């Protein structure tokens, strides 16, 4: 079975600091990878996704993620965070070969950006 590990439960950064949130998955096959964000009081939104091709994926709001197959990782990055990036971030994976498999989510990382 697939599983997803997000190493940081809560990250606190000052504005303009750089961000990297770790995500590792356990699955030997080909996968689709996602990062979702949940701003306070709002629903989950897709930040970015990787299906194939260039392993460096750019998403909305200046976020990017890099798929490193040898490390089973899909870390999320942003060079300079803003207060408005305060949110909970979820990494997720599903099986690329199957059109219908549900996403398996990590437990989430809460990001707090302080002035």
């Amino acid at each position, binding site marked *: 079975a697939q599983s997803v590990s997000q190493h940081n439960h809560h990250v606190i950064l000052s504005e303009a600091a750089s961000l990297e949130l770790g995500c590792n998955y356990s699955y030997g096959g080909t996968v689709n990878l996602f990062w979702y964000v949940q701003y306070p009081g709002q*629903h989950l939104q897709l930040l970015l996704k990787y299906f194939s091709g260039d392993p460096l994926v750019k998403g909305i709001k200046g976020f990017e993620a890099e798929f490193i197959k040898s490390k089973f990782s899909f870390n999320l990055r942003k060079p300079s965070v803003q207060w408005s990036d305060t949110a909970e971030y979820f990494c*997720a994976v599903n099986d690329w070969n199957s059109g219908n498999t549900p996403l398996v989510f990590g437990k989430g990382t809460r990001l707090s950006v302080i002035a």
Partner: protein
Amino acid sequence: DVKVTQSSRYLVKRTGEKVFLECVQDMDHENMFWYRQDPGLGLRLIYFSYDVKMKEKGDIPEGYSVSREKKERFSLILESASTNQTSMYLCASSAPETGNTIYFGEGSWLTVV
């Protein structure tokens, strides 16, 4: 834009009550899902459905059932609510032509007292 609508944002129910959570999507998606979200546990899959009248158990189906009589509607049922089912419930949908990107509703906060 895909719209996934959950009929109730906030509910308070008593232990033992039967609870219905309704979800409708407007994009003709084949796949629909129910997750629950709890602090420190992330999102856990309760049930999902690939088509009308079919359902599959997720990771935590105990105490829940689902109904999918129409393609656009996927209902989650708590036959006899218990306090440990107090949670945020998230409905979602996807389709192969969208790359199986999952689109979420706003969530239903259920409190069982």
